[in-house]
């Protein structure tokens, strides 16, 4: 199929385009007008459409001849307003262009941050409750991703498209060697919250493969999938493995989750006592945000495994080697992704 990929030159997008090409799809890469593309190794294998999702008039032309839209673009930096405009207004404009261009298939790349982590107990699955009543206590990224899903879902509910939503965990790989859930750096120390908890890691190449599997599978339409690698990695181990390979001698300090959340709750109560409901605290001391980053749960990956039809080709050890080892297997390399992607064809495809 011919796929329009928004955010094609982003950290995940580069791997997704590689995987799509390896599976024999045609790709139109939607990149922003000022973005560099000459460093992308698949640059000569795709068609580029330059547009910014915030400007709706640039988008309808991108839909010509497209079978499916793979919507990866979102801002991970900037203030709350900028993140909202990039992710949510961008999605509004994109779905409007899809409606105009008659494109009826969409895969939205959301995030596990959309869950209400205060209510996730034990196991996270696609049926876990989504953030609703406490949404505006969360950070700008979570607010933007939750609203992005709402906009896409409304579009699908109107019968305008067949929607699949994927919610990756913490995406890592060469070029992104640390993840938000691992803890906080403080001088020579790494404060590791909930050291025995499991991180919701997904390596960029594994994640890209799962994203494309979900796009290809007929059975995935109308469904949501958490994308988390099947290897269960504890936070303590992750920080140790990463530090050993990148940062030399740093000191890991284990802080039990219950201590961290206890401090956050205490800080929050003190703030409320002193300042009322308007009091402001750093994100680490806001209980809902702390829970979303560090709450130790297990992950049920059965749904994405069923959609993919195969386990990821890359084990955690493979991922470490590809991320920190020598050689050209980084985010801009199509060869590495192509080889891994080729081994992971889904069983159920359109």
């Amino acid at each position, binding site marked *: 199929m011919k796929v329009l990929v928004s955010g094609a030159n982003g950290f995940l997008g580069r791997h997704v385009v590689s995987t799509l090409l390896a599976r024999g799809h045609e790709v139109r890469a939607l990149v922003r007008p000022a973005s560099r593309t000459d460093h992308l190794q698949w640059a000569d294998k795709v068609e580029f459409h330059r547009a*910014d999702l915030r400007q709706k008039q640039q988008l309808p032309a991108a839909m010509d001849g497209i079978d499916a839209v793979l919507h990866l673009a979102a801002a991970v930096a900037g*203030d709350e*307003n900028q993140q909202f*405009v990039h992710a949510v207004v961008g999605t509004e404009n994109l779905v409007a262009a899809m409606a105009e261009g008659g494109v009826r298939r969409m895969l939205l790349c959301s995030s596990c941050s959309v869950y209400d982590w205060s209510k996730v107990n034990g196991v996270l699955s696609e049926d876990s409750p989504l953030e609703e009543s406490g949404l505006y206590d969360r950070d700008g990224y979570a607010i933007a991703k939750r609203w992005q899903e*709402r906009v896409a879902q409304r579009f699908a509910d109107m019968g305008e498209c067949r929607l699949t939503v994927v919610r990756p965990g913490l995406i890592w790989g060469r070029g992104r060697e640390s993840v938000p859930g691992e803890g906080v750096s403080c001088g020579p120390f790494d404060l590791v919250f909930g050291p025995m908890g499991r991180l919701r890691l997904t390596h960029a190449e594994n994640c890209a493969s799962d994203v494309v599997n979900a796009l290809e599978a007929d059975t995935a339409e109308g469904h949501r999938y958490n994308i988390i690698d099947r290897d269960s990695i504890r936070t303590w181990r992750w920080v140790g493995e990463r530090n050993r390979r990148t940062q030399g001698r740093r000191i890991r300090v284990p802080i039990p989750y219950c201590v961290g959340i206890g401090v956050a709750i205490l800080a929050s109560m003190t703030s409320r006592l002193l*300042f009322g409901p*308007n009091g*402001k605290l750093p994100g680490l001391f806001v209980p809902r945000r702390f829970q979303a980053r560090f709450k130790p749960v297990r992950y049920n990956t059965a749904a994405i495994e069923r959609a993919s039809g195969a386990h990821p080709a890359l084990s955690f050890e493979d991922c470490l080697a590809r991320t920190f080892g020598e050689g050209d297997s980084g985010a801009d390399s199509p060869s590495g992704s192509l080889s891994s992607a080729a081994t992971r064809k889904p069983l159920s495809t359109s």
Partner: protein
Amino acid sequence: MVPAQSTPVSASFNPRKPMIQSDSQERNGTADGTRILRAAVIGAGAIAREHMKCLAERSDVEVVAVCDLSAASGQAAAERYGVHRSFTHHSELLKEARPDVVHVATPPQSHFAIARDALLAGCHVIVEKPVTVSYEDAAQLLELARERELILVEDQNYLFNGSIQRIFELLNSGEFGEVISVEVSICLDIISGGRFSDTNVPHPTLAMPGGAIFDFLPHLASLAWGFVGRHHAVATSWEKKDPATPLPYDEFRALVRAERGTASLSFSAHTQPDVFWVRVNGTKMRASANMFEPRLTLDRVRTGLRPLIPLFNGLKEARDVRRAAIGGLWRKLAGGPGAYEGLWRLVGQTYDAIQGQAPVPVSLAQVDDVSRLVQDLTATENRL
């Protein structure tokens, strides 16, 4: 504050005509007899949220609707602040939600049309700065507000910050003496990134006279006006120091001769670190206010042993700085208006004025003078 320039509401202001006020709304009111005012916020961006946060603190205001071109942005703002209705076009909002007061918090190019329609619908208007892009448009709005006896207030928020209000108090009490000059200086790195330097979607202000710096001129102009009054003459320097930036200008200086003194105004995108200084020089006192922090230091003429005067000055300044540092941290933790304290005070006083309890905080003449100064600061004939 600036009370000398304000129009006493009891003298000039008639409570709004009941043309969009239903009988049931007329009966609604608070325990102290003031009526509940129906507010609408047009625009749902960062500054609009400050307006809504501030309105949520008032018991005599109900925000009845919010509007944004992006339906999701409007709905998110409505959900967040408990507003029942959101619209994607301001004219539908005016027709269906029938507000008493409209807050215009959209990009500057849209201010004129929205504020005009709101005034024509019989609403009081609080509009973000700049009130309009051109002085001619501002003059039209002011005329419309006069004709219809409605309030039109531009958000000249820094005039209402605590530090500036304190200087006005000292001026009014006579402790400050007379103002000789004011220096207003903004140093802000808007070329290394951020919304003004976005090369994918050019910021709307880049199309205005002066480019991105235009966005800051109302702050410079309103502070100059507050301390030295209406201007008589202006000389400016506009430069583009960094050829790579999409901004047409990144350095600006101006000297303004006004009815009560002179003003030196500047904006620098290169000078670091970021700061926003207001220095007011009087015949008895000198005040320095850092607007990015709640810091105000006052130097006054002292009597006594001359060799000890530097010591007393140093101790006083150290105390002011220490108090400001602690106050700044407290302000951050307390939430509330933070750096937007002036906006909250201005909006609060505007609603008090609509309720007939206070003068209008920013008179039409003040909006006119500041708009005229902004126009002259950008005029090519005033450039050196």
